[in-house]
């Protein structure tokens, strides 16, 4: 099981990614503490989604993976989003 042609992320990139993630965490804590009403939940989920995308792209090396794997991950997250939307449509309109 030899690993070939794999991208090697530099330490600088890893540190930068961590820094961005920590900044986003701080923003989400501050934003939620300001009590923005109905937008709070939406904002928290949006920031969490951005953080998750960054982890997937850089720490989990998706940016450097083949197209098939990237499409698979995208499809699964799309499927998950559809499941959530359908659950809520069912819940609100029954």
């Amino acid at each position, binding site marked *: *099981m*030899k*690993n*070939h042609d*794999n991208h*090697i*992320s*530099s*330490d600088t990139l*890893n*540190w930068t*990614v*961590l820094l961005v*993630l*920590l900044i986003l*965490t701080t923003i*989400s*804590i501050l934003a*939620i503490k300001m009590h923005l009403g109905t937008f*709070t*939940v939406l904002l*928290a*989920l949006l*920031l*969490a989604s951005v*953080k*998750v995308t960054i*982890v*997937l792209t*850089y*720490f*989990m090396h998706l940016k450097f993976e*083949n197209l*098939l*794997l990237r499409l*698979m*991950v995208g499809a*699964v997250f799309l499927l*998950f989003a559809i*499941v*959530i939307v359908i*659950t*809520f449509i069912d*819940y609100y309109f029954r």
Partner: protein
Amino acid sequence: MSSTEHSEHIDSDTGKMGMWLFLFTELFLFGGLFIVYAVMRSKYAADFHHAALELNAFVGATNTVVLLVSSMTVAMSLTAIQQKRAGKAMGLIFITLLLAGVFMVNKYFEWGHKISLHLYPGSDVMKTLPHGEIMFFGLYFMMTGLHALHVIIGGILLTIIIFKIKEGKINSEHYLLHENGALYWHLVDLIWIFLFPLLYLIT
């Protein structure tokens, strides 16, 4: 490239794809709980608001930082092994394990505090609470407990990886297990990124 080398290359790619397929099932395991949380939150908004005030956002934030840093150290250890720096790779995984320990100690005190207040599923105090609050604490223990179990499994996996690096079985040419272990650890981080705002921040 010889034919053996070619098949080995495919093995490494499929090995990684298999890990991703497993991670998808993990996503839906937690995803199901997230959906229950979302529906219950919209049904019992007031109870969830009240119950969430019991959680300590500072402890949650600390554990978020701990997990984010540990995610970076494990990513850096993979970089180190690819660059033939086995010692650095082992050191970085060791730091990751220490951070996992810090996370679990925080969790121990957090759960301990809740249990000392008799806020655990099935307790006498819990039975007197409104239905929505019982729901919140039930989900809190279920989701953080399942997540903590993943932290422990990830820790065991990373320990195995340290030994394999030491034995030379994981090296700059063969590091699929290291890669998959790192992917698993990042998943633990991913789930916490959603758990933290949903349970601790939004009240």
